[in-house]
C-alpha cells in the first residue's frame, strides 16, 4: 500500500482543518432546527463523524482517516469546543481507520464508508459511557444513540461519497491520486 507523501499529509490535515471550520459554522444549523431539537440534533450528529472517512475516500491511503480526524478535532478544540473533543477525535478516527484497515484499504463504497461512520459512532458511545453520559434511562439511550448511528451512516456513507464524487468532477482529485494504469494505456492508442 502507498505511503503518505508530504503532499498527502498536508492535504489530509487541511481537510481536517476545513471540517473543523465547517463544524464551527454547522452549529448555526442547530439553531435552524431548534423547534424539533432533540431528534433533529441527533440526526445532524453524523457530521461530526464525517471528517475521517471523507479524508480516506478522497486520498485512499492508510492513516488518513485517523490524521484528518485528529486535525479536525484539534481545530475544534482551539476554536472553543473544549479540549476534550481531542479524545473524541482520536477515538473516532481510530475506529474509522481500523474499519478501513479491516478491508485492507481497498474498499471505498457507500456501505464501507457508512460502516466506518458507525464504527466512529460506537467509539464515541464508548467514551460517553466512560464519561457518564450513558447513565440515561434505557429508552432514552436507545433513541439517542440509535438516531446517532443512523445519522452517522447517512453522513459518512452517503453524503461523504457523493461529495467526493462531486469533487472528482471538479478535477481537483487528479492532484492527489496517482494516475491510473488505464490512463497510461490510453496514451498508447
Amino acid at each position: 500500500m502507498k505511503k503518505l507523501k508530504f503532499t498527502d499529509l498536508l492535504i489530509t490535515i487541511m481537510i481536517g482543518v476545513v471540517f473543523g471550520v465547517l463544524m464551527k459554522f454547522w452549529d448555526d444549523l442547530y439553531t435552524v432546527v431548534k423547534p424539533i431539537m432533540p431528534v433533529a440534533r441527533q440526526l445532524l450528529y453524523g457530521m461530526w463523524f464525517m471528517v475521517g472517512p471523507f479524508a480516506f475516500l478522497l486520498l485512499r491511503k492508510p492513516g488518513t482517516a485517523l490524521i484528518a480526524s485528529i486535525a479536525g478535532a484539534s481545530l475544534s478544540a482551539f476554536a472553543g469546543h473544549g479540549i476534550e473533543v481531542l479524545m473524541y477525535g482520536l477515538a473516532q478516527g481510530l475506529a474509522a481507520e481500523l474499519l478501513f484497515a479491516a478491508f485492507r484499504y481497498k474498499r471505498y463504497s457507500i456501505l464501507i464508508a457508512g460502516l466506518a461512520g458507525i464504527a466512529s459512532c460506537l467509539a464515541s458511545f464508548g467514551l460517553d459511557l466512560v464519561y457518564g453520559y450513558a447513565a440515561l434511562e434505557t429508552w432514552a439511550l436507545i433513541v439517542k444513540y440509535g438516531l446517532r448511528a443512523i445519522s452517522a451512516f447517512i453522513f459518512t456513507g452517503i453524503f461523504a461519497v457523493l461529495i467526493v464524487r462531486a469533487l472528482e468532477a471538479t478535477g481537483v482529485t487528479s492532484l492527489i491520486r496517482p494516475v491510473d494504469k488505464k490512463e497510461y494505456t490510453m496514451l498508447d492508442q
Partner: protein
Amino acid sequence: MFNWFTPKRETWLFRVNPALKFIVFFAFLIITLVNQSLSFAISQAILYGILFYVFSGYSLKKLSLLSIPLAISFLSTGLTMLLFGKGEAVIWQWGLFKISEESIQHALLLGSKSLSFGFVGFTFILTIQPVLFFYAMMQQFRLPSKYAYSFIAAFRLIPAVTEELQIRRNALKVRNIQFSKGFRGFYERLQSYTVPLFAQSIRRAQRIAVAMEAKQYQMGAARTYYYPTRYTGIDMVFLLVMICSLSSAFFLSIYR
C-alpha cells in the same frame, strides 16, 4: 482576534515547556474522564478552576466571558442527566421527566466533569503559543517534523478558509438559493458549501507542499530549529505542583 489572546501578565504557566504541559493536561483529561467518584470530580473541578482563574494571567473580564460557555455546558450536560437519568429513589416525576437521587448525583458528576474539561482546556489554550507547542513536540517528544509543519501550515490557512466560507455564504444568499426540506436539504446545503471549499483548500495545500519541497523541505531529514525549546527548572516545579495538587485533591475527596 489574536490580540484578544494576549494575557494581562505572563504567569509561570507560560514558561512551562508547552509539549510537557500538553501531556500533563491530557493526562488530567483522561483522569477526569474515567473517574466515577463525585467527590473527586468536584475537588478536581475546584483544582482546575484555581489553575484557570488564578494562574492563566488574563483579566477578570475575559475570564468571566470565557466562563459563560463553561456555565452553559455545566447546565446542559447536568440538566439532561437530571431529568432523564436512571434512578430508583424517585423524588419528582412528571411524564417522561423523572428526578431521582441517583440522577441528581449523576448530574453533578457530569457537570463537574464538564467544568474540569473546560477549565483545563482553556488554561492550556490561553497559556501556549501554538507554533512553540509544535516546535516543542518535535524537539522534546520526537514528533516527526512532517506532521508538525503540516499542522502549522494548515492552521495558518484558517483565516483564508473562514473568509472563503463567508464569501460562499454571501454568494448563496445573493443568488437566493433555496434548499429543499429534510435530509435532502441538508445534503444540498453541505454540498454547496463543501465542494468549492474543499476544491480550493486541496489546491492550496498541494501548492504549499510543492513549494516547501522545492525549498528543500525534506521528510525525515535531520534538521535544526529556529526556535529551540528545552526543559528548564520551571518544568520540574510544574510537574511537582501538578502531581501534589492532584493527589491532595484525591486524598481530600476520600478522607473528608
